[in-house]
């Protein structure tokens, strides 16, 4: 049951074969610092374990390898498995780590706060609400607890921005001051009426904990900041209909216009174990007519929260207004599943006459198919940006640390970096997500690494001249072609979450980048590709993020996330990673698969956070080129590159000048230094 591990781990992870003694100078003149590990015992044990790994990979369960002396996990093949949610398995290890090693101190906790992701100044946040663009401002509302770092006392926070990155926090837009929302002003969405006015529909949890839908609208439509909101005097406008449970009726969507001139929107619910999207028509947002069909439903998926429904073009990657329809249009139906706390979407066709939506492929229907994000990402919601003609996706990224730590640091939760969503016109079966282009305005210094080659088992530190806590990384990888062609390791059944993370060695993977990693690799977060070859030669790409060794702390998530990602003929393996302190967002193949991770290192913080390349495959070498940008903080105006800006530099310069010119006087005073 307990994972008995040698408490004193070797300094470096010996699953990564030592880099040879001679410097590997690359043709960009950059010298990678090499480390000299000479440990023949580890090498031979490791070789034995490769065989173990290969045998297991081929499904051979015979213990023909019993002669290999596997010393109790000195070698890292089994990462400390934490399932994140203790389900009856004791996670005790006989680690001699004392509390002092990783007790959450202010330095570690304050480092966790992000530089360019949306978060309020303190306390708890969850779902994004009613995002919209109005009179020159992007508006963002969100579920907020003004009283603590845990969910409860939920009201609507509010912020505005010109660029989706630099936010100005405004007063709360709605509080729980009515009988129908006293137990929670929950999630809702905005609809722009024909005359440009805004109707906000949201869920209230009543004084008897019944979920009802309520209408709110701006008190003053001339106010670009939309500071004040009015709740319709006749609220609630909708209560749970017959056959729907009083606690299974929440999160109304943005409405779309039908050809009859009525508005139509959806609310998620369930009937027994079937998750469904109810639909209502309205002309005035006060009187509603429930359609006797649902938009769609999928058996076995449970409650559908935060339903989202929107059109995408099949021919171009611009966004479409929520009411758009036509021959070159498909519709995305998305639900947040209460069962597993993940966001799922499916592409399909909306048939307005019947009111139903039909998935293109029922096998990957809503809730049983594709996820927006294979990490921490929930309750997401899109809106149409008419200025830049794009559809933007917001998603709640919760904490993966302990409540006690959240209380200590005084806040919990982030929003994912806003992404555009569009049809992947190359595959036609999935969406592409990509950070909004404004992210590039945060880029400062850049370092490029071209054609770096890593043999199997190599780890190469990247000599980054700036901090590694705020980065935008774009990387491309290629495997050695002949090795891929000749490899006879076939058809492994692979899943990121059930693998051993980056320690899970295959012929053609894993390879990728270690972010937020400490110099000795005692803490590291691998983001990587894992390639599997089928007997007929076709290759499958998996993209994973491994939290299992991201921190020495025992009270943080140690799971491994990821998924299969479609890779087309001729494409290199490409990834983009946004690192922003305790959030890491990883995009594969231009955004076909995305993984959001929350990382809480105890050592790999501030100047001790480093970046590495690695190739832990057993057969194939890799060649990679990457660009690494230093990312600015969103709290600093775009023109300044340092925290204090030029004014501070001038002050420091003259202070030093004065000091130097008058150093005798200073020496006389006992300041403790003498020139």
């Amino acid at each position, binding site marked *: 049951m307990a994972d008995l591990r040698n408490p004193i781990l070797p300094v470096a992870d010996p699953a990564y074969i030592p880099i040879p003694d001679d410097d590997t100078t690359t043709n960009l003149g950059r010298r990678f610092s090499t480390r000299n590990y000479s440990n023949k015992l580890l090498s031979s044990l490791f070789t034995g374990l490769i065989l173990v790994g290969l045998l297991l990979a081929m499904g051979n369960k015979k213990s023909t390898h019993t002669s290999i002396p596997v010393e109790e996990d000195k070698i890292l093949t089994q990462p400390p498995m934490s399932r994140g*949610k*203790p389900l009856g398995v004791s996670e005790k290890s006989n680690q001699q780590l*004392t509390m002092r090693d990783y007790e959450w101190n202010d330095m570690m906790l304050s480092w966790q706060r992000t530089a360019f992701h949306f978060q309020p100044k303190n306390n708890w946040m969850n779902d994004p609400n009613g995002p919209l663009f109005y009179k020159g401002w992007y508006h963002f509302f969100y579920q907020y607890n003004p009283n603590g770092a*845990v*969910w409860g006392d939920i009201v609507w926070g509010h912020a505005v921005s010109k660029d989706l990155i630099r936010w100005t926090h405004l007063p709360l837009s709605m509080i729980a001051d009515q009988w129908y929302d006293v137990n929670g002003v929950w999630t809702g969405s905005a609809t722009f009426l024909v005359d440009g006015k805004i109707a906000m529909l949201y869920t209230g*949890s009543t004084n008897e904990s019944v979920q009802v839908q309520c209408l709110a609208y701006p008190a003053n439509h001339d106010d670009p900041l939309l500071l004040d909101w009015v709740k319709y005097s006749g609220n609630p406008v909708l209560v749970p209909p017959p056959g729907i449970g009083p606690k299974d009726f929440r999160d109304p969507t943005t409405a779309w216009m039908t050809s009859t001139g009525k508005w139509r929107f959806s609310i998620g619910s369930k009937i027994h174990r079937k998750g469904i999207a109810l639909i209502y028509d309205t002309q005035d947002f006060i009187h509603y007519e429930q359609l006797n069909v649902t938009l769609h439903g999928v058996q076995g998926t449970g409650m559908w929260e935060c339903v989202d429904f929107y059109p995408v073009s099949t021919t171009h990657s611009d966004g479409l207004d929520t009411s758009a329809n036509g021959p070159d249009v498909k519709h995305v139906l998305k639900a947040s599943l209460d069962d597993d706390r993940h966001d799922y979407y499916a592409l399909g066709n909306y048939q307005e006459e019947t009111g139903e939506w039909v998935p293109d492929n029922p096998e990957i229907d809503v809730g049983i198919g594709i996820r927006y994000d294979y990490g921490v990402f929930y309750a997401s919601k899109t809106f149409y940006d008419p200025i830049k003609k794009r559809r933007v996706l917001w998603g709640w990224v919760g904490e993966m640390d302990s409540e006690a730590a959240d209380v200590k640091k005084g806040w919990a939760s982030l929003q994912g970096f806003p992404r555009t969503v569009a049809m992947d016109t190359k595959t036609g079966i999935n969406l592409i997500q990509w950070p909004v282009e404004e992210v590039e305005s945060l880029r400062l210094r850049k370092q490029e690494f071209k054609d770096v080659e890593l043999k199997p088992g190599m780890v190469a530190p990247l000599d980054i001249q700036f901090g590694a806590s705020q980065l935008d990384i774009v990387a491309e990888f290629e495997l050695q072609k002949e090795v891929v062609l000749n490899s006879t390791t076939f058809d492994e059944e692979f899943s990121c979450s059930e693998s051993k993370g980056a320690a899970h060695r295959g012929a053609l993977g894993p390879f990728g980048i270690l972010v937020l990693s400490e110099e000795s690799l005692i803490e590291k977060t691998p983001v990587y590709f894992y390639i599997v070859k089928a007997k007929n030669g076709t290759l499958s790409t998996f993209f994973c993020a491994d939290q299992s060794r991201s921190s020495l702390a025992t009270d943080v998530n140690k799971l491994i996330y990821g998924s299969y990602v479609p890779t087309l003929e001729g494409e290199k393996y490409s990834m983009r990673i946004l690192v922003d302190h305790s959030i890491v967002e990883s995009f594969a193949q231009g955004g076909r698969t995305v993984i959001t991770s929350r990382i809480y290192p105890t050592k790999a913080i501030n100047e001790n956070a480093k970046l590495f390349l690695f190739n832990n495959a057993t057969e194939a070498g890799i060649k990679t080129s990457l660009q690494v940008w230093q990312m600015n903080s969103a709290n600093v105006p775009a023109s300044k590159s340092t925290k204090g800006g030029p004014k501070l530099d001038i002050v420091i310069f003259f202070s030093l000048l004065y000091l130097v010119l008058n150093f005798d006087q200073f020496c006389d005073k006992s300041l403790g230094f003498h020139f």
Partner: protein
Amino acid sequence: MIRSTIFCILTLYPISCIQATPSIPNILGNNLIDQTCKKTPYYDLCIQTLVSCPESFHTDLEGLAKITVGAIAQKASAALRRIETILTKKEHSKPAVREALNACASRYRAVVEQDVPETLMSLRTGNYKFASRGTNDAATEAMSCEEDFAAGESPLSDLNVAVHDVSVVAAAIVQAVIES
């Protein structure tokens, strides 16, 4: 028995356990408790926890979840009391142990003041994923408290295990509520 009665009464929302000594129930006759506990990894503990509170025989799945959350609160409070006792008695002068006890106190305060109310509110309003979060976090806090100590030095092992295990049971029942 008295202790069990107390934890029922301490439950923050009205599940009143009036009888001091409940009669031995016919567990097999009460399908809900048996079925529910089968969905948890600690069947015996689940049965014991629920059966100690007579209200469990007249309530639904949500009610059973609330009862187990009450047990979390009771055991976490006991841990806080023991920490206070040890720290004031100054029995353990080892700084490492005192530090660990202080860290554990923060953890258990989070359980009692954050996790438990969050879970009960979530169950009450039907936004169940926060109940899942609260119960799972309680288990994490308990486990982490135990790991804050060097091997053999924890004066809280029995309570840490108790909180961890009953939290895991509660989390499993919450998941059953979500999937019902």
